[in-house]
């Protein structure tokens, strides 16, 4: 019964967010509806687009400051979606200052609504199924976006805008129906045991997301304008490879190696830029370039969305963690966009622009595998430390004794290791053992050397490989 309730709540939560996100993708955040409206009125798009992106970034980044519980998150989502609805109405009328105000309001509050959903993503997603929840919301919202885009580009921009707003209304209904779940104390205590916080993994993830999305920004500015003449095809095919990639990733077995998929995505994105340089600008060329590019985007997006989802399990404030993670994505799009705009505005031939863009893409992609490795190690570290803390002392001792070292640890090093595994920092260990911090650092270095590892995270990972955590 309880499982059924959770499943139902999960569906409601996914549906509500998908409709909200469809509104954002089709209109507020560089959406086709917004571009069509600005084009229709003959207005310079850049200031509006940039304002909306910056406001959205601010909303995502600051939401965690005032949303600290599920109740507030629900109210925030409903209120923010209502405000977005009101702020979209001026777009049915000729351009005025209300357009800019509307984009600032809708940008900021849609960011807040998205970040606040972090509470529901955590509450209604079973452990190890974040990839499925994230894939679901991305697939459904992109399907809805395609539908809105097709209407906006082939029928009427205003009908498209109306559909965008309808998405928002339906999303509000689903969020309103969403039950509130009281987290039990034990669960709360588990989540609050953050072992120095998730700050480092989150910063690393933000860097990871930022690098990935710089490429998306470049793609928007360099590749998209080249295929503008294929309006009909672009209106529906644009996000199809993205959705297919998400669907494939969603249904991959749990044991599939994520790093291999990441390499595949990198190969696809490089392939897309090379095809863009070598091929022409007709329909089949577009299909090849877009399939490679958007397929890679789907892989990358689901990759970091699911990692961000997993991080929520160790966060005190999911709205803050989710918001900051997504704001890195928005910031990446912004920087990539500015980079792309700078490249195109120099007036270089398109082939040279593509070569420069490819160079930037290659340079950024080189950084992904080491970042991914560090991120995975940090997350494993986090997962393990929490499990380790829940074990009794004799079991903790067993773990340390079972793993072979190059040289036996001294009794002092064993004490230090126990404290490392309790998630204590060097300073805390120094305080606990009444020794100086530099002494602790030396002991820690020696322990690493004896386990033949290079970092604390790698040490924990070694322990994890050798010990089945219950």
């Amino acid at each position, binding site marked *: 019964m309880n499982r059924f309730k959770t499943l139902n709540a999960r569906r409601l939560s996914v549906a509500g967010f998908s409709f909200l996100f469809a509104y954002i993708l089709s209109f507020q955040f560089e959406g086709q509806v917004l571009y069509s409206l600005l084009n229709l009125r003959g207005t310079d798009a850049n200031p509006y687009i940039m304002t909306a992106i910056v406001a959205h970034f601010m909303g995502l980044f600051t939401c965690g400051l005032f949303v600290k519980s599920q109740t507030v998150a629900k109210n925030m989502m409903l209120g923010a979606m209502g405000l977005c609805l009101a702020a979209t109405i001026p777009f049915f009328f000729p351009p005025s200052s209300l357009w800019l105000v509307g984009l600032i309001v809708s940008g900021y509050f849609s960011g807040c609504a998205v970040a606040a959903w972090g509470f529901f993503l955590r509450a209604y997603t079973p452990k190890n199924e974040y990839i499925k929840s994230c894939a679901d919301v991305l697939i459904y919202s992109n399907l809805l976006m395609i539908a809105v885009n097709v209407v906006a580009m082939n029928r009427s921009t205003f009908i498209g805008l109306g559909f965008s707003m309808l998405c928002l209304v339906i999303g509000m209904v689903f969020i309103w129906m969403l039950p509130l779940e009281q987290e039990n104390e034990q669960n709360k205590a588990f989540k609050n045991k953050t072992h120095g916080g998730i700050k480092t993994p989150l910063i690393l993830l933000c860097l990871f997301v930022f690098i990935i999305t710089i490429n998306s920004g470049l793609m928007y500015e360099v590749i998209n304008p080249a295929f503008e003449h294929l309006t009909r095809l672009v209106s529906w095919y644009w996000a199809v490879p993205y959705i297919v990639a998400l669907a494939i990733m969603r249904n991959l077995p749990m044991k599939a190696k994520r790093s291999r998929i990441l390499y595949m995505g990198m190969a696809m994105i490089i392939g897309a830029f090379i095809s863009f340089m070598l091929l022409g600008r007709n329909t089949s060329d577009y299909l090849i370039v877009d399939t490679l590019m958007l397929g890679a985007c789907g892989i990358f997006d689901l990759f970091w969305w699911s990692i961000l989802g997993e991080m929520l399990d160790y966060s005190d404030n999911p709205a803050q963690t989710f918001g900051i993670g997504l704001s890195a994505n928005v910031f990446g799009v912004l920087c990539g966009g500015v980079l792309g705009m700078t490249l195109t505005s120099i007036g270089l031939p398109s082939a040279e622009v593509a070569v420069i863009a490819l160079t930037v893409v290659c340079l950024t992609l080189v950084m992904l595998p080491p970042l991914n490795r560090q991120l995975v190690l940090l997350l494993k570290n986090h997962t393990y430390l929490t499990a380790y803390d829940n074990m009794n002392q004799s079991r903790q001792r067993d773990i340390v004794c079972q793993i072979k070292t*190059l*040289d*036996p*640890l*001294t*009794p*002092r*090093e064993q004490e230090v290791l126990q404290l490392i595994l309790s998630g204590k920092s060097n300073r805390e260990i120094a305080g606990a053992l009444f*020794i*100086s911090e*530099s*002494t602790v650092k*030396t002991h820690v*270095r*020696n322990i*690493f*050397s*004896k386990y033949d590892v290079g970092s604390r995270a790698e040490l924990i990972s070694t322990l994890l490989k050798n010990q089945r955590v219950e």
Partner: protein
Amino acid sequence: MKLIRKRRNGYALLLAASICLTVWLGKAFMLEAVFAFGATSLISLLLLVRQNRLLYAARLICDNPILAVPSALISMPGRQMKKDTEETVVSTFGILIGSKIYRWGLDGVHGVRLSAVQIDKERMYLTFGDASKTMRVELLHGMPGKQAILDAAQKLLCETGVTAKIIN
């Protein structure tokens, strides 16, 4: 340790002075002098870095003392030398004899390590080294009774993992 600190400060002063002179002479376009003082800056920087490392190791040794004794005799295969100093500290991470540092256990399994300890009524013998070189230090430990010797052996075991051989 005082001597190491003094030397470190001296090198720091030398570095600062030589940099200032290099800049000043550079402004005056005295190229030969600029090269000379530039080289001095570089050398003093290297010496400063080295001395800083020594000071760090000395501090580490002084922070983790196991035994402090008035004299030490250092022996190496092929030669022997005696050193009487005011400050000899045996610690988890090495031995500090005046301003001379013999380190162990600072570079994990691949560096210099303490390999054996022997203690008798008057002296303590510490053998340490790596694959290429081994050294032996002999100390007049000055510990009054058997209990004090056992305590020191226990502390050595806890801190370095080496079991001291106690000779009656």
